[in-house]
């Protein structure tokens, strides 16, 4: 069931509506608050140090909890002896795996985690014992006194190892061996597509994993009170899913006795979207001890939580016409999932979903495999599963443009996916501003005059320009667990004081979602957005919003807020109309007044208007809810990819390379992003610049590197650099100058036409950097990060007369051999397909219990 499908929503009574449901076609001059650089509702507290993050909370008699984590990459737990720890003065509670036997996980198909490992550890950092004490130091010391006896198992260290070693299996579910997922989707007629191609390329790419690195280290405070109710404050992006996981593991504690409050997040980027071991263990510990329990993770533990970018090995075969039109794309991705499922099923699909929404792809074959390995689990990071294939595709297109002698920018412009269309894999594109984005960055950067001509500079270094594009979704079309309820709900309460309070389950992770509520409601009701009280992320008080992930909040919460506000406006209009004796349809809501459009002096203040409505109708409250329109894709696996709308970005990056060493810098970036409509100009800019920053880090330096050493039969396999110093992220000195273009191509599915901005502009950075390095010094680095060493190695290869490239083997040996089975075959829309598959291949996977 889909609530409030914009196509079927009836116009409210009273004034006949001429605008589209979400007012995407409103003219900027009609809008009072939307699009203006108003402060965020929480800006003053944030600059005053008054925002309370989870670790800032303290309760009387609070205990501090620490986790003892596995020192082994892969082992069975033989025995745990906590007696010495229990005897340490100050220790108040100890938990082990047997205390929380029910498994959990973010996706219903992979409930494969335990709050504490009961019998097996799967990576260095997997938690085994939880200890609470009166002081954090005591809990830490006590952990050192626990003796854990392990029986070591063979370590599975990466994609190739997992493919080659079905045993030992990390989990007893999945496809087979250490293959967690296999997907095989075929849209259209690949053979025909390649037959019609005038040029075919096959390339192999690798994208190393990297992590979110939020500045705030995760923290949780849990309090099980004397009424038998549990309250958990946590740095989480998804309070609703944490609530579900707690209810599951803490069974038989009823779900309605559990309250989750999402504190403002000190950065999330997807890294606080899973329910975590420490959150559940803290809750259980509070139930055990009867006292509030806090756990604040160390930086190293944040690396163990991870859920970041999957390492992905990719092989892409593409056939194009002479003008670069893609007649066939055959794409394979191999994901290193780490130790658990997490969002991995969705991540796997995402490595194949969005290739089709930027440029027309006539026939498309996607195969994806996800493996279990003994690393910290991967999951969703900004761009979730799509940056890796985007890197591959955009670099490959750059190579094709070279092969064909085309301008990479023009080639893309000539082959854009059309607006208001269905793609080969049945994604519904609405507004599509990629062309405008490309034009902006091409003009701004002087692309036509400067590309390929910058060459050697007076300082002896080489400059070059690279271009890349991308697209991202404005929220996933389907919820994480199947249900027919809204994805986002907003309640409004109107007070006699004139105060409007908005209740919503959404979570502000710095992106400004609290403010989005304020701006939209303020716009609809004609009142000051900063005067609205926003109550969010509290499962006791606020209606469910699924969480701050997949760039869904602005569109989904925004639309729900819009509906709630419009309903409130109708109620207030009713009260005012009656009091003033003018028809409700003539009333205008602006400047905190409600007045007659034909006689503006006739009216009342907003507060008087609310009172008039309450006098007539009783207590004033409204609700709004939103669920995305139904997807056109009906085949199995078609649930990942559909979205109410797609944002578009284009980037040109300039690099300066020291050809003697491979060291390079990025002095300047031009980034254009089609945001639909910027609800707040300055805040949108901040999201774009932040994406440029994070993309730059991924492009140049960030990686989840592992130490893999063996000595006398002992293998150590552990994250090499779990610290802010050694996991390199760009500082003020690496940040380039950025010219940002906010392109507005309003989409009818978004509030006032808005689309996402939080993730999309990150994606083109990585391929644009790689393409720019090629423009500067003529070498290809087909691997992320494009580190100095790799540029140097490619330059050396060039010097030695070898292929001027660094990357995984270009032939089929570059990827592991995996039997994907038969593909699920779907006719494309232009073949007359209806979104269903026309065959039914055998399936071998089995879900975890």
């Amino acid at each position, binding site marked *: 069931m889909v609530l409030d499908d914009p196509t079927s929503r009836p116009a409210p009574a009273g004034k006949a509506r001429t605008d589209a449901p979400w007012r995407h076609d409103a003219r900027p001059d009609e809008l009072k608050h939307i699009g203006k*650089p108003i*402060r*965020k509702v*929480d*800006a*003053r*507290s*944030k*600059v*005053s*140090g*008054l*925002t*309370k*993050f989870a*670790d*800032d909370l303290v309760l009387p008699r609070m205990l501090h909890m620490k986790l003892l984590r596995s020192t082994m990459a892969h082992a069975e737990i033989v025995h745990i002896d906590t007696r010495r720890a229990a005897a340490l003065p100050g220790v108040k509670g100890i938990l082990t795996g047997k205390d929380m036997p029910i498994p959990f996980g973010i996706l219903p198909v992979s409930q494969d985690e335990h709050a504490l490992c009961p019998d097996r550890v799967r990576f260095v950092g997997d938690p085994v014992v939880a200890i609470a004490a009166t002081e954090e130091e005591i809990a830490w010391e006590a952990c050192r006194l626990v003796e854990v006896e392990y029986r070591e198992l063979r370590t599975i260290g990466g994609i190739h190892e997992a493919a080659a070693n079905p045993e030992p299996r990390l989990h007893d579910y999945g496809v087979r061996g250490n293959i967690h997922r296999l997907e095989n989707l075929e849209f259209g007629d690949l053979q025909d597509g390649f037959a019609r191609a005038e040029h075919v390329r096959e390339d192999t790419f690798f994208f190393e994993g990297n992590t*979110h*690195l*939020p*500045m*705030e*280290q995760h923290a949780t405070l849990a309090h099980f009170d004397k009424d038998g109710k549990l309250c958990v404050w946590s740095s989480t992006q998804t309070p609703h899913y944490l609530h579900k996981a707690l209810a599951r593991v803490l069974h038989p504690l009823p779900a309605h006795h559990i309250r989750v409050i999402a504190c*403002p997040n*000190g*950065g*999330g*980027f997807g890294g606080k979207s899973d329910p975590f071991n420490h959150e559940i263990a803290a809750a259980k510990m509070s139930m055990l001890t009867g006292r509030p329990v806090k756990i604040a993770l160390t*930086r190293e533990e944040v690396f163990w939580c991870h859920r970041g970018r999957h390492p992905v090995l990719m092989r892409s075969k593409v056939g194009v016409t002479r003008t670069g039109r893609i007649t066939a794309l055959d794409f394979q991705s191999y994901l290193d999932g780490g130790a658990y499922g997490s969002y991995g099923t969705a991540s796997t699909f995402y490595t194949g979903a969005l290739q089709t929404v930027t440029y027309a792809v006539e026939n498309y074959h996607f195969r994806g495999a996800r493996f279990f390995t003994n690393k910290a689990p991967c999951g969703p990071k900004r761009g979730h599963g799509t940056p890796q294939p985007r890197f591959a595709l955009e670099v490959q297109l750059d190579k094709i443009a070279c092969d064909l002698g085309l301008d990479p920018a023009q080639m893309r412009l000539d082959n854009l996916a059309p607006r208001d269309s269905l793609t080969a894999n049945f994604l519904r594109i609405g507004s599509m501003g990629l062309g405008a984005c490309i034009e*902006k960055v091409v003009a*701004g950067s002087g692309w036509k005059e400067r590309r390929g001509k910058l060459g050697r500079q007076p300082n002896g270094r080489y400059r070059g320009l690279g271009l890349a594009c991308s697209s991202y979704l404005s929220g996933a079309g389907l919820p994480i667990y199947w249900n027919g309820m809204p994805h986002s709900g907003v309640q409004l309460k109107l007070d006699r004081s004139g105060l409007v309070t908005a209740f919503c389950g959404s979570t502000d*992770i*710095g*992106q*400004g979602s609290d403010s989005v509520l304020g701006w939209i409601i303020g716009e609809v009701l004609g009142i000051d957005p900063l005067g609205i009280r926003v109550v969010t992320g509290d499962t006791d008080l606020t209606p469910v919003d699924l969480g701050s992930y997949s760039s869904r909040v602005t569109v989904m919460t925004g639309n729900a807020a819009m509906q709630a506000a419009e309903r409130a406006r109708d109620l207030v209009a009713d009260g005012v109309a009656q009091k003033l004796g003018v028809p409700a349809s003539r009333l205008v809501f602006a400047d905190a007044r409600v007045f007659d459009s034909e006689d503006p002096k006739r009216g009342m203040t907003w507060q008087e208007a609310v009172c008039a409505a309450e006098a007539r109708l009783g207590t004033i409250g409204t609700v709004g809810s939103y669920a995305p329109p139904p997807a056109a894709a009906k085949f199995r696996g078609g649930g990942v990819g559909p979205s109410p709308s797609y944002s578009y970005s284009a980037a040109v990056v300039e690099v300066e390379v020291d050809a003697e060493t491979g060291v390079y810098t990025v002095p300047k970036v031009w980034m254009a992003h089609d945001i639909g409509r910027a609800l707040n*100009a*300055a*805040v949108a*800019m*901040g999201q*774009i*610049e*932040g*994406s*440029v*920053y*994070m993309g730059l880090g991924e492009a140049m330096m960030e990686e989840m590197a592992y130490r893999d050493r063996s000595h006398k039969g002992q293998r150590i396999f552990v994250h090499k650099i779990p*610290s*802010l*110093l050694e996991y390199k*992220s760009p*500082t*003020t*000195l690496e*940040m380039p100058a*950025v*010219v*940002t*273009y*906010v392109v507005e191509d309003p989409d009818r599915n978004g509030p006032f036409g808005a689309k996402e901005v939080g993730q999309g502009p990150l994606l083109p950075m990585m391929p644009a950097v790689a393409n720019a390095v090629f423009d500067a010094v003529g070498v290809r680095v087909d691997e992320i990060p494009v580190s100095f060493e790799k540029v140097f190695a490619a330059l050396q290869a060039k010097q030695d007369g070898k292929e001027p490239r660094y990357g995984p083997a270009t032939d089929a040996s570059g990827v592991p051999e995996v039997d994907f089975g038969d593909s699920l075959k779907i006719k494309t829309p232009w073949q007359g397909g209806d979104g269903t598959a026309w065959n039914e291949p055998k399936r071998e996977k089995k879900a975890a219990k």
Partner: protein
Amino acid sequence: MTEPGKVLATFSVNGEPHEVAFAPHKTLLEVLREELNLTGTKHGCELGECGACTVQVDGTPVLSCLLLAVDAVGKQVRTVEGLARGPELDELQHTFADLGAAQCGYCTPGILMAADALLRDNQRPSRDEIKQCLAGNLCRCTGYLKIFEAVELAAARRRGEDAQPSKESIHGAR
């Protein structure tokens, strides 16, 4: 000599004396946050690797995670809570709020304290001087650009100019 047991000391924080008891191995970060409940000062590593814990001691920005609290006794400690003058925000706080230079806001207190010290010594810092000054503060949200712009704008306002953010920094390039 200070034994491992607790010491009782009087601190001057944001111009007010505070009497607190704490063990000598406690850092200023711990005492500010856990004894004085001044949680505006943040922490991201406790090893000197992020700058989130920056406070001013006798006007100099330092990392409170690597400074013993006992060594701050007798000195003027200033934290983000001490930036505003009563209900009125400091210029830096205003410009950070207006430009969205605080996204999640976690790095913000540390950056404000470093930037405030810069503006006291240098009324007209160049973009490069601002970058250098903030080269010990990591921010994962903003890409720093709004932060640089906010510092420049605040500098202008502290000089008494009626400066406004550029159109480009708010609406982007045309």
